């Protein structure tokens, strides 16, 4: 059976791939392609945050009673990541490659350490507490990611 950890981790990797597409385009100095790829990446990230904030986190919080714990930290980091993505996209819209690279540098580390905390700690906790709900929960999450 697919676990929450496996499913969500795979979606992280999917987002990484989309981000890499944007980076590759920047490497070729193709700003238009980079902007398109980055928008793609941003949409996938926002869909991921969305399903976490609307579905996964509330279910976890309801079940465990921990509403100010790890999920709260993850929400704060989502805010930071949203802002970083906005900044990077704005740099691309202005055609400013150096500015983009600066923003993307921070974005990459922030995103990866955020993913690491989720994959190593939060998702395993979800799997531990939500085993009964997992099939329904994953179906729901999959649908939400599809909409995004």
């Amino acid at each position, binding site marked *: 059976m697919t676990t929450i950890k496996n499913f969500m981790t795979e979606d992280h990797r999917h987002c*990484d791939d989309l*981000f*890499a597409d944007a*980076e*590759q385009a*920047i*490497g070729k100095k193709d700003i238009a392609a980079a902007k398109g790829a980055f928008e793609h990446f941003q949409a996938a990230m926002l869909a991921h945050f969305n399903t976490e904030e609307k579905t996964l986190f509330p279910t976890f919080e309801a079940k465990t009673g*921990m509403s100010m*714990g*790890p999920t*709260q*930290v993850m929400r*704060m980091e989502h*805010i*930071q990541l949203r*802002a970083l993505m906005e900044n990077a996209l704005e740099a691309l819209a202005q055609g400013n490659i150096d500015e983009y*690279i*600066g*923003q*993307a*540098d*921070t974005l*990459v*580390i*922030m995103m*990866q*350490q955020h993913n*690491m*905390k989720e994959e*190593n*700690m*939060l998702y*395993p*906790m979800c799997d531990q507490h939500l085993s009964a709900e997992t099939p329904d929960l994953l179906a729901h999450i999959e649908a939400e990611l599809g909409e995004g």
Partner: protein
Amino acid sequence: MEKASLSFDQAPPFSAPLRFFLTAPLFALLAGLLLLWEGPELLLSRWTPGALAATHLLTIGFMLQTMLGALIQIMPVVAGVNIENPIVFARWVHIGLTLGALTLVSGFYFSLPTALTIAAIVLGISVSGFLVGVLRPLSRTPSTSPTIRGIKLAMLGLAGVVGLGMLLAFSLAHGWALPLMALTDLHASWGLGAWGGILLAAMAYVVVPMFQLTPGYQARLSWWFPLLLMICVGVWSLGVLLDVSILGRLAQAVANLLGIGFCGFTLRLQLKRRRARADVTFRYWQLGLTSAIFALIMGLTATLWPDLATSNQWPIVVGLLLIVGGFLSFITGMLYKIIPFLGWIHLQSLGEYKVPAPPMKKILDEPAMNLQMLAHGVALLVLLVAVFVPELVRVGGLFFAIASGLLVWNVFGAARRYRQHSKLILEKLGKL
């Protein structure tokens, strides 16, 4: 595990790791100045007082400092391991390491038995303190990733290298009749293999894919590499203990092969990087991996022709390649990412997400880091040549002092700019 996870927002305050990162380059600078002061004498053999002093300025003063500082920072993120009272903990470990390293180095350089004894005790207590502080939370964390298991094994390596180091220091100070040469090689294998090598691998599993968007390390390789390396060092130790030199040589050969494999594999992963641009961290890793491969090939060769290992030049070249070319490069490359990122993230939370933090390059800019790396690369080359052309030792020392001085400038500059931005952010926050 649950308890650790609940508090994973409690990343330690910036000052906990920063004190280590600020002190370490000063030790490297001291090593450069020592080379400059001593000149050709220092590189005559690995047993000269100057060479022993310089080696420990780099291994304890620079490497151990940054490694423990980085662990305090990174363990909560990668392993959910939270140290209680990180500031107090960091302060004591840092003071102990700094004083211990300075005392040890003076003991070597001025041949002071009492200083060696005191240094061994101070360093022993500091590192034991560190181990005690992290072992409890670490033992509660299941080894769910190669990184977590690598960190656990590295702790064993740390205990080994410090234990042997203390034994050696006491032997030197009190004239105990021990096989000092064999024990010194063993001490180095625990330090650079079981501790440094395993910790480096455990960190590489995380940071190589993270900084450069490369594919991940193959799961089975990354799981086995640290354990196999630890087994090699264990067999080597057994060889020394039972006085069976062939056992040590065999273990040494396998350990070198493992290291070459790991470095080669990492180089190959880095070729598949998907970031837009090669940055200074990437180039530092390339330099480090290439130097380490040369050092390990030389180490392997010496297991086949042991006469090489007893020559004066061979071990010095290996040491330069592995420590200056390898570990110093890896560590500096990582510092150049960690310091600006930590600065940024702490400024971000200081602004309570209402006042934006400046981008990382406002804390540490690329050209300054590139210049420092250039000086480091030149220093390495000149020092390698200087092993055979003594007239060049002082030139190499000068370049190494310049490279370390620039590193001091860069990290202190980053800390200064961090403080300036903190002030600005608090002012802006007050006006909101």
